């Protein structure tokens, strides 16, 4: 019963993290694209005048897609057509089962590892499950009975299969270094220091493997420069061309969920997962009180500063729009002042002396935060690359996958083996 409750709550946390990240990523994609392209980006959707810099748009999108008519081609394969988006989404979500998002949390004297399923073959599980997502794409492209969708499905299949191999090869180097297929072990191994000052992150011990892996991940997630399955200027939208309404939304969300996986995998394998460099778990626990105090002071100062900025907007732009949007700065001041008050209240309670339970909780909190920060950074990298680079052609993609990345991956394995044998 305890185990069930524990697992369910961890699944719930992971699900909330991913779906929250999907919403944030959609916002980040739009605002990031706008930032890169020198424009403003979405800022129209509002709740009672509060626009949250465009964060309301994903919510508006969800409602739009939910209530939209589901237009489907008449001569589709009904079963597969309906199944495809669910397969894509389910597979995207199930990869997270083995990704550790923190070390452990002590609840009622019991240490709970912060990973949904700590499989001893976690790495193989990821490779296996990631490949399954192809089925949804192929089904979607084929069942819709559209030629562009069909071409997109073919592209997606060949691309995902070719890049699976180099991805696996890159990860094998990592497995050799850390000596385990278990993701918690790999992350634990990255907590050490190399030569006493360098974090023993995957990217430090496997630089070439990292380059191969990140390329393969971009290809697996169908993001630019490898977004051939849905290349909008050639085959219009590829495999999800004939999908509309919530079925399209599932494909759309799955793309972002894949991005979150991609970012989480890069962070876990090559950037130490939840590990904070130079601050291993015992140090975190020992200094939890000090860190919490610093954090609270930081939050207090930052929220007061932001509240002051909003205050200026209240003064200067009292009747800027002449409608509900004028309420935005007032509510902003209120929100940040409440946050500042919370931080001040926390400081009054003496956070420098929080006891062992509090220390454990705070250490976990910092580690989960570290993981999330890395996740967001690599997700931003996806967006950054997408709005900078053009896309490859089909045959160039295959060339890169089979003739460049697989030999490089093999060379990486050999070099790793030699270094491990002789150094």
């Amino acid at each position, binding site marked *: 019963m305890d185990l069930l409750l524990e697992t369910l709550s961890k699944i719930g946390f992971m699900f909330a993290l991913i779906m929250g990240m999907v919403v944030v990523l959609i916002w980040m994609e739009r605002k990031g*694209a706008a930032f*890169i*392209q*020198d*424009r403003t980006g979405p800022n129209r959707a509002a709740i009672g005048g509060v626009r949250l810099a465009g964060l309301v748009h994903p919510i508006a999108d969800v409602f739009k897609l939910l209530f939209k008519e589901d237009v489907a081609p008449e001569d589709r394969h009904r079963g597969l057509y309906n199944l495809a988006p669910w397969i894509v989404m389910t597979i995207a979500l199930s990869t997270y089962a083995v990704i550790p998002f923190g070390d452990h949390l002590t609840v009622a004297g019991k240490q709970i590892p912060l990973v949904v399923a700590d499989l001893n073959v976690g790495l193989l599980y990821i490779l296996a499950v990631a490949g399954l997502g192809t089925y949804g794409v192929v089904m979607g492209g084929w069942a819709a009975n559209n*030629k*562009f969708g069909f*071409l997109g499905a*073919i592209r997606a299949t060949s691309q995902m299969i070719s890049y699976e191999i180099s991805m696996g090869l890159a990860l094998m180097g990592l497995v050799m270094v850390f000596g385990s297929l278990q993701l918690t072990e790999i992350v634990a191994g990255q907590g050490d220091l190399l030569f006493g000052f360098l974090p023993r992150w995957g990217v430090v011990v496997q630089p070439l493997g990292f380059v191969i892996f990140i390329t393969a991940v971009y290809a697996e997630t169908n993001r*630019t*420069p490898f*977004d*051939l399955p849905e*290349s*909008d*200027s*050639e*085959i*219009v939208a590829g495999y999800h061309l004939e999908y509309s309404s919530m079925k399209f939304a599932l494909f759309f969300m799955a793309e972002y969920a894949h991005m979150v996986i991609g970012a989480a995998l890069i962070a876990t394998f090559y950037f130490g997962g939840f590990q904070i460099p130079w601050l291993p778990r015992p140090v975190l626990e020992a200094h939890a009180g000090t860190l919490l105090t610093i954090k609270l002071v930081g939050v207090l100062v930052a929220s007061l500063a932001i509240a002051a900025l909003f205050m200026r907007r209240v003064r200067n732009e009292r009747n800027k729009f002449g409608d509900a949007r004028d309420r935005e700065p007032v509510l902003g001041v209120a929100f940040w002042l409440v946050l500042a008050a919370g931080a001040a209240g926390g400081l009054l309670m003496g956070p420098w002396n929080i006891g062992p339970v509090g220390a454990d909780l705070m250490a976990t909190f910092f580690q989960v935060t570290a993981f999330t920060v890395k996740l967001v950074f690599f997700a931003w990298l996806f967006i950054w690359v*997408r*709005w*900078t*680079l*053009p*896309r*490859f*052609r*089909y*045959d*160039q993609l295959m060339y890169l996958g089979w003739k460049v990345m697989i030999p490089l991956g093999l060379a990486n394995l050999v070099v790793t083996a030699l270094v491990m044998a002789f150094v």
Partner: protein
Amino acid sequence: MTDDVKITNRGWESQDHASEMKSELLELNMGPQHPATHGVLRLLLQTDGEIVYKVTPVVGYLHRCTEKIAEGVDYKQWIVYTDRFDYLAPVTNNHAYVTAVEKLADLAVPERAEHLRIVTAELSRIASHLIALATFGLDMGAWTPLLYCFREREEILNLLERIAGGRMLYNYMVPGGVRYDVPKDNWVADVLEFVTMLENKKLPDYNTLLTYNKIFIERTSDVGIISKETAFDYGCTGPVLRGSGVKFDCRRDDPYSLYDRFDFEIPVGMGEMGTVGDCWDRYIVRVREIEQSCRIIRQALETLPEGPYGTLELKKPVKVPAGAAYSRTEAAKGEMGHYIIADGGAKPFRNKVRSCSFCNLQVVEKVGVGLMVSDLVALVGSLDIVLGEIDR
């Protein structure tokens, strides 16, 4: 599968097992609603998977009988219709038409008007080339250059709005001059400032972002090669012809207006990244033409003479004697020709337009065979067609 078709430029040959395996070609309708056909062009493709066996452009979705309309309106009234041919560079279309009418009516154009014509036409050319770069980048999957190019085009639209009153369709030139003089609010200085900014800041930006991007070069070099002979056979003109390495430009080789007074070069494709006449060559020709247009604008504005900007009263119709005249000008997309037969009345007897995009597009049928679908998109994008001009 038809055995006689051989695709050689990807090392793909008709193989023996093809006759055993029953397979058929895929008929693919690209357009008329497709993001990469730059308007309402329909490309009827026969492909074997991704490789194109046959491509047939189907045009006519935007036909507006403009040439027939010309027979029903007088010479000046038709200028507004010329704007709508190549709607991305309308001033160059005006230029082609008014030159023909001036030839027929033997009208002299004051020097100030010629300078203003050149400046606005070159600004229009830059605007058109910016869109060509932008949409070509978009066809290759690069989104951001599109927005950057449109940002700069916006500046040109603002400048042209100040002198001509319109933002998209200017109706700026009239036989014997231009419609409006330079506005009094520092327009010349603003144009010069914009031109300098474009040359020194923006074009290097595009070059680093798109032109010399490795993926972009991979996608466009050695793709869709139009040889010199093919370009001649199909009557290609403009950047398409120059991309194939032919140094021909009406502005230099058959000078009209005052182009022979200005110092500029004619960029040609040199096969820097692959073969002469590939998509990258056509692209880089446009980038370099923007630089040359900037040079022309600067020279024309620095030597802008004082004087009248038109010889005719605006409201009076042009008197054209009976006869025929053909004028050719270098529009943004190639050689724009107007052939007018006049019968001495207020309206022309016949007006035939030789539009550059129409001729340039035909080459797709030959060069497109054997390319992949993505390459075909690159080819069509590099031709820089405008459907308003193809269908008229």
